[in-house]
């Protein structure tokens, strides 16, 4: 998982005050006017939820330490509560709402596996875990149990669904998505 600190400085891709921010979320392009749609201190998590209505992105700690707000940015799992929207100009974001197949409406195999294994209890951490799992499988289609645990280490699950989450992901390992 990456945070904004890995992104090579805040200036890269940042918008100037008079510029609009362009954000592609789940394939849909959004133009956001700084000062009107967004403020410079808005986090990506806030913008996704409050401005654009992608409320499947969950905020729990809001300090980058629980993984709930994880989304994919250009395919990488990132903590959206640690990134300023201003830094995300031109980025391609996938939220949980964008995980199912947009044309067919069919669930992503990971989503189906989570259903089949009841790999959640309260479900609040589930969107973030699913997106990290997708980033992992995209890079490594056959992860070991250890690799899955490493990838999900930053995700706080309090209900104890870890074991069934791992089983669900392992059920897909090597199935070549």
């Amino acid at each position, binding site marked *: 998982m990456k945070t904004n600190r890995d992104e090579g400085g805040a200036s890269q891709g940042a918008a100037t005050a008079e510029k609009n921010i362009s954000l592609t979320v789940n394939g849909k392009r959004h133009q956001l006017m700084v000062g009107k749609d967004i403020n410079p201190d808005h986090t990506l998590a806030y913008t996704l939820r409050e401005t654009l209505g992608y409320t499947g992105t969950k905020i729990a700690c809001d300090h980058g330490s*629980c993984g709930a707000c994880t989304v994919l940015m250009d395919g990488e799992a990132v903590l959206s509560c640690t990134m300023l929207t201003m830094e995300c100009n031109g980025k391609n974001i996938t939220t949980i709402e964008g995980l*199912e197949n947009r044309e067919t409406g069919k669930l992503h195999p990971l989503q189906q596996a989570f259903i089949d294994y009841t790999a959640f209890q309260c479900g609040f951490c589930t969107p973030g875990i699913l997106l990290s799992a997708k980033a992992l499988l995209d890079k490594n289609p056959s992860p070991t149990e250890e690799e899955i645990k490493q990838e999900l280490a930053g995700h706080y699950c309090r209900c104890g669904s870890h074991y069934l989450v791992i089983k669900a992901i392992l059920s897909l390992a090597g199935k070549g998505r």
Partner: protein
Amino acid sequence: MISMGEEYRHIGKSTPRKDARAIVTGSARYIDDVKLPGMLYGKVLRSPYPHARIKNIDTAKAEAYPGVKAVLTYKNVPGWMGGVPYHRPVLDSTVRFVGDAVALVAAETGESAEEALELIEVEYEQLPAVYDMEEAARPGAPQLHERIPNNIFPRGFRAIGEKALQEIVMGDVDKGFKEADFVTEGTCSYENIPNPLPPEPPGVIATWEDPEHLTIYTASQSAAMNRNFGQPLLGLIDIRVIGTQCGGSYGTKNANMIPMVHAAALAKAVGMPVKVYFSKEEHFNAYSLRLGSRIHARVGIKKDGTVTALAGEWFVDTGAASEMAQVQVAVGCGEAQLALRCSNWNLQPQLVCTNRSPSGVVRGFGGQELKSSLLPLMAIAMEEAGLDPLEFFKKNYVKPGDGYYWRDGLWWDYRGIDFSRAMQKGAEVFGWKDKWKGWGKPTAVKGNKRIGVGVGVHGNADIGEDESEAYVKLNPDGRVVLHACVSESGMGERSAVCKMVAEVLNLPLDRVEITAPDTMVNPFEFGLVGSRGTYTVGSAVIEAAEDAKRKLFDLAAPVLGAKPEDLETKDGKIYVRGKEEGAIPWRKAMGISRTLTGQGRFETDFSLCNCMMIFAEVEVDIETGKAELLRVVAATDCGQIIDPLVLEGQLHGSLGSAGIDTALFEETVLDRDTGHIMNCNMIDYKWRTFIDLPQFQNVILETPIPSHRFKAIGVGEVAPAPGPSAVLMAISNAIGKRIMDYPATPDKILKALDRI
């Protein structure tokens, strides 16, 4: 998992949760996903001091701030009183813990509300504070509440009965000690005051329809409880409660009274809906910690493991207020008797307030606190008598023919099953016989590493507590709506009760829907607490489905020319038993312009209990003092599994939610000079990550239990409770030294080993 249950169409099978698709697609709506038209945002100014009088408070600048619609202080809030007994106003002129509410602001945006908080000028007069419960109970200690003399709460709580259990007194302890072969004595402290910390912070939206009608949207484990407890608090006005998806609760979001009264007070002041949603920092500083527990006790024991006497003092620290800690004390006392058969008791609880964030309802509900501090004292006695703890627990856990005083203060004869078979099966899977080497003896030694094992047990008769009602409405198209006020905070209970209805009516699962947890459209429900859902809500739902089926057959009998008792239904069709070819659809019996509603009700029954045994294997590094949990086996008998995967998950949940890990690293670190919580963020507050998972096996037996049609009982709530004492025992055995103070962090372990 070991299973022996009956074959049913749905019961006992893993089926997708009804809300599964919503959860994995992000469309499940939690409290912060709900926005009402015109809704304002409420924020709370919190005290920086553990104990202070507000000498002066000036809100003029905050009131004038753009976007601000209301500012409330103790001077202008409604006079609602909360707590047991009433001692907690909405806001007060005295603050009693760091994080206590000082003022409330409602504004058009959360940002404006927060900025306005900073403009409120408060002059405090600091007062002396007290953090230790025994110090707080001594004469001359700083006093927290006028209504709570000497900081000791009055016993009892009328809502659970005039004779509410507030101590364990029976037999003659002096005689019992004389009969003992060994008498041991000790003190054990379970005072980590951990935070159950559901991922979703607490939140409530309040909106007044008119002065007599308040609507509450809440992320709750038990939506109806917010009405049941809220009504007396708010002066018996009508409260409609609508539960949203709840992002974890573990007891803490049953009746969200504090955010509810804050939101309701602000909404009343502004005449608009107001949302109060805690930040994670507020969640750490001002929401439902576990009770602190400390026991000084003497135990009399015979060589054969008979406990002849148990006497002592149980100090319970509830922090600055009691939500219903008296009930937790009562249930804890009841549960102690389930696990420890003993004829002579004198256990005296003292419920005390101190200047820290209040305790609240937490999974384990008094019982985990009592067990975690009592079982290590029992271990001293077992060691003295040379007893294997597994055999001791098997012998002393409640059995048919035994009884106990439950929370209502009444004696209940136990009519359930003998759980020692589940304990034995768990021991076999764990390998107890080979791993147990005796008290203070490690299972294995590898260099600096010492392996040790331990075991704990717990159970609860609250599985049959309080009342539940249900309606089952049959539609002529063969579809069914279950009206039951069941919330979803992770236990899958909404799906479980739909399965029960589908089973009784022999329908595919997708033909049964359940209403939203909304008190206006549903009959009475107490809530999902104490593992009660399976037995209590289940009983009401089954009775309602059977009632509806009877009504359906009464209508169908003349159409089919048969007696109602000879009819069967399957997949929305009715037929005479054995003559399925002549089946008619429900609508032929009902007509298309009719619904049939069956009713069901469950009444309190404390004559059954559940049981959970946890075996733990730890590895301690005697150089660093670090203890690591290697393996857990959780053993239980639930009568009949409703859904195997849901149950597996609930038992795995014994690690977190202020459970097993409170023996190892989980604690709220309170600075006892300033009253500040030092680890109020998710980095400094320690939690188990995916990398740190121990091996975990569940052993679940299905011996039919006389509860209802499906012979099932719930077990989710108790899952963590035996864990902390099991881990402490394992650590003590690994290092050959007793640890009597949780959590067993490296410093305590090294101190026990005389290495620091």
